[in-house]
């Protein structure tokens, strides 16, 4: 499948060319300012930096970005609903092979896509899965798959890297001018003074110019991905209501790479509620408004709704000429699951990914145990206080791990487990502060209302059984 919205391809190439030209120009001017004959050397250096950055982004980019966002790959059986929705939307978009699916442990509802058509990935946060129903999730995933099939992922990373290079170069240059200006003025008189002034002006303007271009392009692509989402799902209200839920949430994501920001459904950056010429995303209310104004689900309908609410054109004539009518479908018949139910399922998946063990006490309480325990160990039930042996659960997890996933708790055992085979006993007096010296030299402090039957040294991990008179 080619790019769904073709007029965009030309615009994107132009963007990259202009950004690269700005970078080269900056390199030349800086080179010239340092020495009148070094202009071409500066240009060459800028070109080299750019090529290295673009190549890095093209080869290792997506895995770096996924790792940076702390995304974990999941399999079909971990979260069937999410997987099925990704598959449904890939079929609707004609995207093959399927994108890989990642999950991020964050309460901020959001999603992003990375990679190119042959090797792409979609990552969603746990907060998103907890809040959205099937139709809304479909809308968000379709938006992300729209980014992939429109080649936004590739173009925006390349453009982002170029902008970053411009910013970096001008920053280094301006700082070096600032710190060395005093010395130079005395040493060299005013040789090349005019060139330096031009270079400084250029170095101040170039990053602003580059960023403005980049953000304008990014905002446009968001609208286009929305148009794709409406068309793929045949259900614009799904994405509209998802956008409302996402923007209503007060949570913000941590560790967001700025180069990745245009690939998110809603901007993950701090202060992104302020919309202007420096934001990667158009205002969410505008996007919702356009989606809600659509009378059908085709590109032509999006163009019409966009014209009515924003007053501009967005979709290329060629795409529109090959566009077919697409009536809006009925909402999914699936009964709405409660937020609690969804949260439970998502937390289960996250725990499994972390290698937590699920154990059930004889009193019926289900609890989770972090990785690092040995087979011989026992824990106290947090409700009834009974000792629960961990052996069976660890063996079961190891058996399941041998069949599929690597890195379950059984083979992720920390070295701490070795030192905790034998447990010593502490006699605890309730209602008093108590200091216990661990044999590693660390002091364990028990508070007056400490009531657990076990305590673990925070330093070496040795465990002590606590008895009370």
């Amino acid at each position: 499948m080619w790019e769904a919205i073709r007029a965009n391809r030309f615009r994107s190439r132009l963007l990259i060319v202009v950004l690269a030209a700005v970078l080269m120009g900056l390199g030349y001017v800086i080179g010239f300012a340092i020495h009148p004959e070094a202009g071409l050397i500066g240009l060459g250096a800028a070109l080299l930096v750019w090529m290295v950055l673009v190549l890095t982004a093209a080869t290792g980019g997506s895995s770096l970005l996924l790792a940076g966002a702390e995304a974990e790959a999941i399999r079909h059986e971990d979260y069937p609903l999410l997987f099925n929705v990704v598959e449904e939307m890939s079929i609707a978009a004609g995207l093959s092979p399927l994108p890989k699916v990642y999950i991020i442990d964050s309460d901020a509802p959001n999603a992003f896509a990375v990679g190119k058509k042959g090797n792409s990935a979609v990552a969603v946060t746990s907060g998103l899965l907890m809040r959205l129903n099937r139709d809304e999730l479909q809308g968000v995933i379709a938006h992300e798959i729209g980014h992939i099939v429109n080649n936004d992922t590739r173009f925006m990373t390349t453009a982002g890297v170029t902008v970053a290079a411009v910013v970096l170069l001008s920053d280094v240059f301006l700082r070096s001018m600032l710190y060395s200006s005093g010395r130079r003025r005395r040493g060299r008189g005013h040789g090349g003074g005019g060139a330096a002034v031009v270079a400084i002006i250029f170095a101040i303007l170039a990053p602003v110019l580059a960023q403005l271009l980049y953000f304008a392009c990014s905002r446009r692509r968001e609208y286009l991905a929305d148009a794709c989402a409406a068309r793929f799902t045949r259900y614009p209200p799904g994405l509209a209501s998802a956008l409302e839920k996402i923007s209503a949430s007060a949570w913000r994501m941590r560790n967001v790479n700025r180069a990745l920001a245009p690939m998110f459904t809603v901007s993950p950056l701090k202060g992104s509620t302020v919309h202007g010429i420096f934001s990667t995303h158009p205002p969410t209310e505008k996007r919702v408004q356009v989606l809600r104004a659509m009378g059908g689900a085709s590109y032509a309908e999006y163009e019409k709704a966009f014209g009515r609410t924003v007053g501009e054109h967005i979709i290329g004539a060629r795409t529109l000429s090959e566009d077919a009518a697409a009536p809006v479908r009925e909402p999914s018949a699936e009964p709405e699951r409660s937020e609690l139910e969804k949260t439970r399922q998502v937390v289960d998946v996250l725990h499994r990914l972390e290698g937590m063990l699920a154990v059930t006490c004889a009193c019926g309480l289900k609890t989770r145990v972090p990785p690092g325990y040995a087979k011989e160990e026992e824990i106290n039930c947090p409700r009834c206080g009974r000792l629960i042996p961990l052996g069976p659960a660890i063996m079961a997890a190891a058996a399941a791990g041998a069949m599929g996933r690597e890195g379950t708790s059984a083979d992720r055992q920390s070295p701490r487990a070795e030192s905790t085979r034998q447990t010593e006993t502490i006699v605890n007096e309730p209602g008093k502060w108590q200091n216990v010296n661990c044999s590693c030299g660390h002091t364990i402090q028990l508070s007056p209302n400490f009531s657990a039957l076990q305590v673990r040294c925070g330093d070496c991990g040795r465990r002590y059984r606590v008895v009370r008179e």
Partner: protein
Amino acid sequence: MSGAIIALVVVAVIIVLLGLWLAGTYNGLVRLRNQVENAWAQIDVQLKRRHDLIPNLVETARGYMKHERQTLEEITKARNLAQKASGPGEASEAEQQLSSALGQFFLVVENYPDLKANQNFLALQEELTSTENKIGFARQFYNDQTMQYNIRIQSFPANLVAGMLGFHRRDLFELESEAERQVPRVSFE
């Protein structure tokens, strides 16, 4: 003498350009046709998947639904018919039948809370729901691609050669027949 050579060159250039254009058009049309065929194959894959899921579903439900033997038998029958169907006309009718049998079944399930709480059943239900969606989306994609292909072979200048090169109009895939579309309309006026 030189006039003849120029004429010859001009004719040769025209022939070469025409050949290049023909090759380009042909390749473009082949690519489109392949996309249409892939889209069609995707529908098939999803229909087959639905057939594979149904025996499991019936097996799981049997233990809980002692009094719904007929509903279950209907599903199995519809599924077997759909699997055996040959030709797109017969197949689409059988698949439609299967869809309505499944719809009936999921309505009945509402009366069996034990079944609805069964993990295995829930997983199967999700897979079936999603497979239904996938069939719908695959059909949608097929129709989009076919539409594009039809527009391309009918528009100038490709329409001059499309017929000669063996590219013909393809039909869209409609699951509901006219009669079925009208059945559920109940009026109390």
